[in-house]
């Protein structure tokens, strides 16, 4: 789609020009790998200039070193992972804790799988599935570099994925048009693309939901703006599944810090009282879902680069009642 036409389409969502301009020059972020180092330990050790974000384990990189972040001791030792701040949102909303059973149904190359593992202190189980066999090797090498020992991989189509297990939490980080993460994506994209992929996203979402335990939580996310890929799949699930309901998207910040992994002291989300995860905080500088889908969609989050300072994302939290 031509830039002009794209801007006009995008302006029905947000301040389009501002959004596109910011997206072209976003900062780098990194996530401290809590499986290998605590946040304080990492900060007193690293030579990188870092700025805090609202997520205690995520930092904005001030100046990228000459050889790139991949050529640092930080990266080689697996003490950090470069990941956009927006991409850290879905696991932070899912907030898995030690000992749970998690399904990450579109997992490769594993940025969010490894973040979940860190939040779980390498305990419990993550089933990391992806339909693309080639991308599973990238996933495996990230598991290795970051020291994740509580994950297994599956290579199934998410629409037909089957497992004898039922999961406490499920992440559906769906394949999408990528308008929020790739500044050039609109060049080959048109609305028809979003309408077409919507059916796949809905299929994966519905099948994932079928594997969720009663009372369990599912997070659906994409890195795009089109409603056909965001509110539409979610509303199709809600319409057809009486036992599904939207919950307010909030980020659980996690508590404490520790050299996880070997000592088994991972940073885990906080549980209060009856085993329920604490409420957390809203995603700063985010927007609610589109009002045309009804009041319920105020509970989902739309993240735009010019407001949030990182990639465009959509995050919805669904509970099975």
């Amino acid at each position, binding site marked *: 789609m031509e830039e002009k036409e794209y801007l006009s389409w995008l302006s029905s969502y947000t301040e389009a020009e501002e959004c596109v301009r910011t997206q072209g020059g976003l900062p780098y972020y990194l996530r401290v790998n809590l499986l*290998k180092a605590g946040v304080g330990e990492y900060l007193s050790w690293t030579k990188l200039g870092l700025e805090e974000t609202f997520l205690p384990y995520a930092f904005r990189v001030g100046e990228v070193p*000459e050889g790139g972040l*991949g050529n640092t*001791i930080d990266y*080689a*030792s697996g003490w950090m992972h470069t990941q956009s701040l927006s991409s850290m949102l879905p696991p932070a909303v899912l907030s898995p804790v030690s000992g749970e059973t998690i399904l990450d149904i579109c997992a490769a190359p594993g940025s969010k799988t490894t973040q979940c593992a860190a939040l779980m202190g390498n*305990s419990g189980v993550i*089933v990391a599935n992806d339909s693309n066999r080639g991308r599973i090797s990238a996933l495996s090498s990230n598991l290795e*570099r970051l020291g994740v020992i509580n994950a297994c991989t599956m290579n199934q189509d998410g629409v037909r994925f089957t497992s004898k297990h039922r999961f406490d939490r499920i992440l559906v980080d769906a394949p999408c048009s990528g308008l929020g993460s790739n500044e050039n994506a609109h060049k080959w994209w048109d609305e028809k693309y979003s309408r077409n992929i919507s059916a796949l996203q809905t299929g994966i979402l519905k099948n994932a939901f079928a594997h969720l335990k009663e009372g369990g939580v599912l997070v659906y996310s994409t890195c795009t703006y089109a409603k056909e890929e965001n509110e539409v799949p979610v509303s199709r699930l809600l319409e057809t599944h009486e036992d599904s309901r939207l919950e307010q998207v909030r980020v659980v910040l996690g508590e404490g810090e520790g050299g996880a992994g070997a000592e*088994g002291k991972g940073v885990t989300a906080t549980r209060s009282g009856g085993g329920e995860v604490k409420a957390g905080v809203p995603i700063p500088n985010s927007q609610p879902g589109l009002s045309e889908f009804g009041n319920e969609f105020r509970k989902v989050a739309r993240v735009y680069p010019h407001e949030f300072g990182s990639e465009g994302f959509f995050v919805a939290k669904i509970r099975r009642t």
Partner: protein
Amino acid sequence: MQAEKFSSYLLERFGIVLPADVELVGENSLRVMNKGLKGFATSTPKGIPASRMKGKFPKPTTAFVQVFGKLANKNVISVGEEDAMRYLAGEEFETGAGDVETGYVIVQHEGAVLGIGFYKEGRVENMLPKGRRIRKKN
């Protein structure tokens, strides 16, 4: 069998005792995983590589020592930034005589375990896999 041998080797050589919730699996090449994974199907081997046989001896992997090397209390070589960069670039380096015995050693930089090397007569042979190396600044 190999798992037991490797566990004794870890204890003897490095003083490492693995946490109760992890398990070593496999025959010649071992992997380490959380016990919770038992009973789950998988399309690739579970967990991460833990050791490979090199001749008669099991060599701990980089991935393994980067997670569990923190538990070691002997045969650890601490390096400054310069040697850390040389090690990560795949080079050998020399080290002053410490209380290190000939054989595999864990190389660490200010608390961060970088990987494994082979120590002999004051030199540390590099064992970092090519895929894990970084480009050194000149």
